């Protein structure tokens, strides 16, 4: 079985890994330590102490709070979006591109969808302004709840003790 150093996993996260190692990592069965290494690399990137449980976006995590072991969704900057079972988007700032003018800011003229049948909804962190997600639905569609992880089962798969409130 292959094993990788934390440095290699950090390079993987940063996108700095050489192709040969990356290819090997993609092709080979995952090493047992991979997930804990991965999460610990992410933990090193943030300034707060709550424990990262699962990343749900490049800058968004489900974390276990130090204070009362609650599971909440949290931005890299530290902004909290509330309980992880609720849709974090409901607590985010939203910008909706629903006119040709707004579409022309991101796509050349005539190369964006007709906003009568498709709009872009961009979700931002209210504290740091990081864009966490973009939805591309029909205008009348409700806010999408991307997914709600089964944390207990997942931790069972990766062979780690699950958070107490999972």
């Amino acid at each position: 079985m292959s094993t990788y150093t934390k440095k290699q996993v950090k390079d993987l996260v940063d996108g700095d890994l050489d192709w040969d190692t990356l290819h090997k990592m993609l092709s080979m069965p995952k090493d047992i330590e991979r997930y804990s290494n991965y999460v610990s690399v992410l933990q090193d990137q943030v300034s707060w102490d709550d424990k990262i449980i699962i990343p749900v976006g490049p800058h968004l995590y489900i974390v276990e709070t130090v204070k009362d072991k609650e599971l909440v969704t949290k931005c890299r900057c530290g902004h909290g979006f509330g309980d992880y079972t609720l849709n974090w988007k409901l607590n985010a700032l939203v910008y909706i591109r629903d006119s040709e003018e707004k579409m022309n800011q991101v796509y050349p003229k005539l190369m964006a969808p007709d906003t009568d049948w498709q709009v872009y909804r961009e979700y931002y962190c209210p504290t740091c302004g990081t864009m966490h997600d973009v939805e591309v639905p029909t205008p009348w569609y409700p806010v999408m709840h991307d997914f709600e992880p089964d944390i207990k089962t997942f931790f069972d798969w990766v062979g780690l003790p699950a958070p107490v409130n999972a």
Partner: protein
Amino acid sequence: MEQLDNPVEVMGIDAGGTMTDTFFVRADGEFVVGKAQSDVDESKAVLESSVDALTHWGRKVDDVFPEMVTCVFSGTAMLNRVVGRKGLRTGLIVSKGFEDFHRMGRALQSYLGYAFEDRIHLNTHRYDEPLVSIKDTRGVTERIDSKGNIVIPVRLHEAKIAARELIEQGCKAIVISFLSSYLDGRHERAVRDVCLEVIKEMGADIPVFASVDYYPVRKESHRTNTTILEAYAAEPSRAILSALSSKMGDHGGTFDLRVMASHGGTIGWKAKELARTLVSGPIGGVIGAKYLGEQLGYENIACSDIGGTSFDMALITKNNFAMHQDGDVARLVLSLPLVSMDTIGAGAGSFVRIDPHSNSIKLGPDSAGYKVGTCWPEGGLTTVSVTDCHILLGYLNPDNFLGGVLKLDVDVAREAVKTQIADPLGLSVEDAAAGVIELLDLSLRQHLRAMITGKGYSPRDFVCFSYGGAGPVHAYGYTKGLGFKETIVPAWAAGFSAFGCATANFEYRYDKSVDIGITKDSSKDDIEKSVKSLQVAWDELKEKVLEEFRINGFKDEDVTLIPGYRMQYLGQLNDLEIDSPLTSLSGADDWDALVQAFDDTYARVYASAARSPELGFGITGAILSGSVETKKPKIPYEPIVGPNPPKEACLGTRPFYYDKKWVDADIYQMEALQPGNKIMGPAIIESDATTFVVPPTFKTFLDEHRLFHLIEC
């Protein structure tokens, strides 16, 4: 003087990435192998390696080179240049509007060369850097349609600007490849001439390659890639080979330096189409097996070459090997005819790991390479390789690996196998290591069987040749139970590829696409026209082949020309390459002979029952090969002495683990064995470059050509 009675006649060079091997053959068939570290200056490495080889005979380069009549080079420098994207900066001129097709590449190129698991694993797919950057690509307005009609005449003033810009930017070569140019080459040739004019005006000295002059075949990406390689990769090699040739001249050599090419022949280093020499290593073995088969009367041969990283297989049926029309090399689709081979990425040096999910042994796909395994601590490896298993089970001699150059540590290997393989599986170290070897042998055996039965043959009709550095170690394992007529291990297995290169013909081959389709409703006129168009293609190719030989100083009348064609049943996707039964075609009456030759070949390659002539026949390509006589190495011959090995060949015994128990294997020195000697397993026959394993229930004898015959009792 002994030298003059027995001159050194043939030299083979295998210039690899780390080592440069040379192979010298004397008139009596005796040979020596030399090794030297490869160098940026290839001629230096070749000379050092030659000195090393000739020391065995106590002779000097300056005495031997003048005696030699032929020298064949094969090397990896050109391939490495492509893989490392370190070629000549090349400018590309294409049909306007198609500037991006080269960098987009064919989707296939994103997973070429991958193991099956990775082919279906999209995340691993990846496009390599294009050979020519988009900044060095220009479009010229022109169009020839798929029927060969000129739809838009070429705008030559655009070509002029394009050429000037490319040269000013610093391109060192220009390649021209237009859509459908294989049907009408006038546009490409006109642009080529414009480029040459511009180069002259600017006082530059750079070569121009029009695809129609080199590879006038269908499939844009293949043709363009191949023509680019001619500039990008082959042009720098020309300089290296020129230097090597003149260096050999300085030492008295008067022979022609030839290079092994993918079509199975050798070509002169001055050849126009040098990109054909991109791959040559594994092909040498197939050529050598064919030659040996012809000399000794084996017409059906399964060739198997196992080295440290891969297992290469090829079939020779009725003294012929199959050709693959669009070979791919270095993850590029190419228009190069290639000796058809199957390769799997499992070799004697493959890494061994435990799959944590299925808790089973997994081999490769990567391998230890020159670092051998954990048994060579200086190599710095920590992952177990197949070699580690061989060492600890007594298959290989830890004190005589590569002639004792590397000292291997059995205890380190034992500990690594114990912690990484045996303990996790709950097995003893011996059983775990034996399991690894069994798994590798099983996998090789399955591939070998699949290759033979997949073509409708039975192993019973074949003799299996086993060579490559590790061939003799594994021969028993991957042939066991398959039912080959015989398994043959040449005593010079490690140098067999170099030997094969030296047996190859001096042969040029040119290809051209043609479009011929004849159904049962076709008129005599149609057939007449088709036959004529094939003859026109042959005439065009013949001129090219003769031109190549003229460059090397041969007269037209010395060249034997063999026309060929690729034919298929209409409605089928695959065609077959056929040597034409007629040397020239005069009219419709010749058609039936072409069809008959195809029908016969089809029945030989597949089966008579699979023939399907109902929809008619198509010819997709014209081929012309030309060859001249060359000196070839003689196959060694020594008279039979007797069944008992001489005393000096016996080196004692060594514990050897086989079939779940330790036995004492007799150890022999390979070079000291005499023709006729019979040896019962368990025995291990050692030489510097290879080890031949004869386990219990097997026996072997050495024949008068220094070929070991391995027999299952």
